[in-house]
């Protein structure tokens, strides 16, 4: 196959079996210190509750574990390897100093119930981060308790609900634009609200006159992503807020796209009442293959009484503490105080940037998206011409003429050494290619990406089958997802290995 780009070349990767297939009795990766209290007879102490055997749990040595996970790791793509332009996910650089400070003994190893007097450092971090995030968002107060973005949405909508309830009626409906993330309607539903789907305008923005016709005193509020999922700032944001506020409804902002705004504008200033932040997006805590995240919820003063308990408070003697006595609180949304380890990392990120760095970060993120837009406009169809902020959304309209869809182009991008962009989202763009470069890409990496996208567009013209059957250079080809869903195999059993070993295809079971 002809060389595709300057970015990648072939490299040997190691095969590796399942850990269970490497297990045999007597191998160990641990040694316990000698027991310094009298030994016990578990059978006597626990009676019929005692467990005799741990079944298929593996027995392996330490070097095998190291190799196992190191080999598996080489099968992953990662930000540390290259550009990861997943729209909506803000795959930016995850600084290593964040990992270092989060593991300092007094922070990494402190018990959530240890007395306040020996928790002042942790409380100070929570307070300082809270202050920074309130300043960045322009909001009055914040809770750090939610564990992720969707959990923040849940918390925010419950705050909204509690506010309405305190006025005598929780109201019935939440308005959500058709361009929203799936978590928005899913959240409104678990909070007991009926969802009003708001159709986007021809520019992909909120249709203000349509919105006006929908808002009445049965509407609790609206969930809005700003910039929207097509990467466009809602120019009528304050009219939207006014329309809602006039009827007593509130404006919730999904902060997924805050990377376009930090240091340039503040949601609290443009009419937002409550919003969540994704520390794992905007504030660089690592995505870790799907989590953990952290989804603090910031809001205006009017929602403060309803914040989850506990909140950090300053005591009369100047010491910090947790305040639990909050009679109007929506209650807890999580045990303990939230994903504290992510607070440490996010605060380290804010310190590393400062006000000038945070602003420059936003500007670079927006500059990068607009650079890609400029370079690829015309080669890929740009369905909405409105100015882009931190991400740009193309469609596969030109490529579908040759039978190639966004998902195929995404898979081909893998062969060029890039992680695919977000495919088929937002739903208002049929065949969407949603590209968010973030600030972390150099001009060189962006140019490689642009070259790759142009080259794929040419392949679509000349040899569409090559794109449709991509990727070609990965360890595994496209997976049979249909069989995976029809006959789910969700755990390993010894029979699976035995059957595979007897099969004529030796590559099914990799060597030990």
């Amino acid at each position: 196959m002809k060389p595709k780009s300057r970015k990648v070349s072939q490299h040997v990767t190691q095969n590796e079996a399942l850990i269970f297939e490497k297990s045999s009795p007597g191998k160990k990766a641990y040694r316990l210190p000698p027991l310094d209290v009298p030994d016990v007879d578990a059978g006597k102490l626990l009676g019929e509750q005692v467990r005799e055997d741990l079944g298929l749990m593996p027995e392996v040595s330490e070097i095998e574990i190291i190799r196992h996970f190191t080999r598996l790791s080489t099968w992953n793509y990662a930000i540390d390897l290259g550009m990861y332009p997943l729209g909506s996910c803000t795959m930016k650089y995850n600084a290593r100093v964040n990992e270092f400070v989060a593991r300092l003994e007094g922070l990494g190893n402190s018990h959530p119930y240890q007395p306040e007097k020996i928790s002042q450092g942790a409380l100070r971090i929570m307070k300082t981060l809270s202050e920074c995030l309130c300043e960045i968002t322009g909001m009055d107060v914040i809770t750090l308790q939610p564990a992720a973005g969707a959990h923040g949405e849940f918390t925010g909508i419950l705050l909204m609900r509690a506010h309405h309830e305190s006025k005598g009626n929780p109201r019935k409906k939440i308005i959500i634009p058709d361009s929203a993330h799936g978590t928005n309607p899913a959240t409104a539903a678990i909070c007991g609200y009926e969802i009003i789907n708001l159709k986007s305008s021809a520019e992909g923005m909120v249709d203000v006159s349509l919105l006006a016709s929908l808002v009445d005193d049965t509407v609790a509020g609206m969930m809005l992503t700003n910039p929207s999922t097509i990467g466009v700032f809602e120019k009528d944001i304050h009219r939207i807020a006014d329309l809602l506020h006039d009827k007593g409804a509130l404006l919730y902002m999904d902060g997924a796209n805050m990377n376009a705004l930090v240091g340039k504008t503040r949601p609290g200033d443009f009419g937002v009442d409550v919003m969540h932040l994704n520390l794992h997006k905007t504030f660089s805590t690592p995505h870790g293959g799907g989590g953990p995240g952290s989804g603090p919820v910031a809001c205006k003063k009017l929602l403060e009484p309803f914040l989850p308990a506990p909140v950090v408070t300053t005591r009369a003697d100047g010491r910090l503490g947790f305040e639990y006595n909050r009679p109007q609180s929506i209650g807890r949304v999580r045990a303990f105080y939230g994903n504290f380890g992510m607070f440490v990392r996010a605060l380290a990120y804010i310190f590393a940037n400062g006000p000038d760095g945070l602003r420059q970060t936003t500007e670079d993120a927006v500059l990068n998206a607009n650079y890609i837009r400029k370079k690829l406009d015309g080669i890929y169809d740009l369905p909405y011409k409105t100015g882009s902020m931190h991400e740009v959304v193309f469609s596969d309209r030109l490529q579908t003429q040759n039978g190639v869809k966004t998902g195929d182009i995404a898979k081909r991008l893998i062969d060029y050494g890039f992680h695919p962009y977000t495919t088929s989202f937002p739903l208002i763009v049929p065949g969407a290619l949603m590209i968010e470069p973030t600030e972390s890409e150099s001009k060189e990496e962006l140019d490689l990406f642009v070259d790759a996208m142009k080259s794929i567009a040419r392949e679509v013209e000349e040899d569409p089958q090559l794109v449709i059957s991509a990727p070609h250079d990965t360890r595994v080809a496209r997976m049979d997802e249909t069989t995976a869903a029809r006959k789910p195999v969700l755990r390993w059993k010894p029979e699976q290995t035995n059957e595979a070993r007897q099969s004529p295809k030796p590559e099914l079971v990799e060597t030990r």
Partner: protein
Amino acid sequence: MPFPANYRYTREHEWIKVDGGQATIGITDYAQNSLGDIVFVELPKVGDELSAGKTFGSVESVKAVSDLYAPASGKVVAVNDELNGAPEKINSDAHGAWMVRIQLKDAGEVNKLLSSDDYDKFVKEEGGH
């Protein structure tokens, strides 16, 4: 695949085949084709009441879910359990793979549905977008 002339059709792509006071319901070949490989069907239980135009279940491909809309009202008298273990039957023979059999409440409802010619015209227009 042609749409059988003795079936009636909805704009949501279900078919209904009347057989005396009862009728069987499924999805059209056009629907299975646009969904792709079907991996799961969720169907009502015998004894459940279907009401015309309302959802009575769903059909799933790997990355999409489509609600099933009842072409006519009536009580479910049989469910095609075979589809639980072999949802691919819908892909291979959509017009044969019935999902539920109902006792029709009002046979008149069926007459309001699309004929095979009208449905054929409808999907050609829809596909043309």
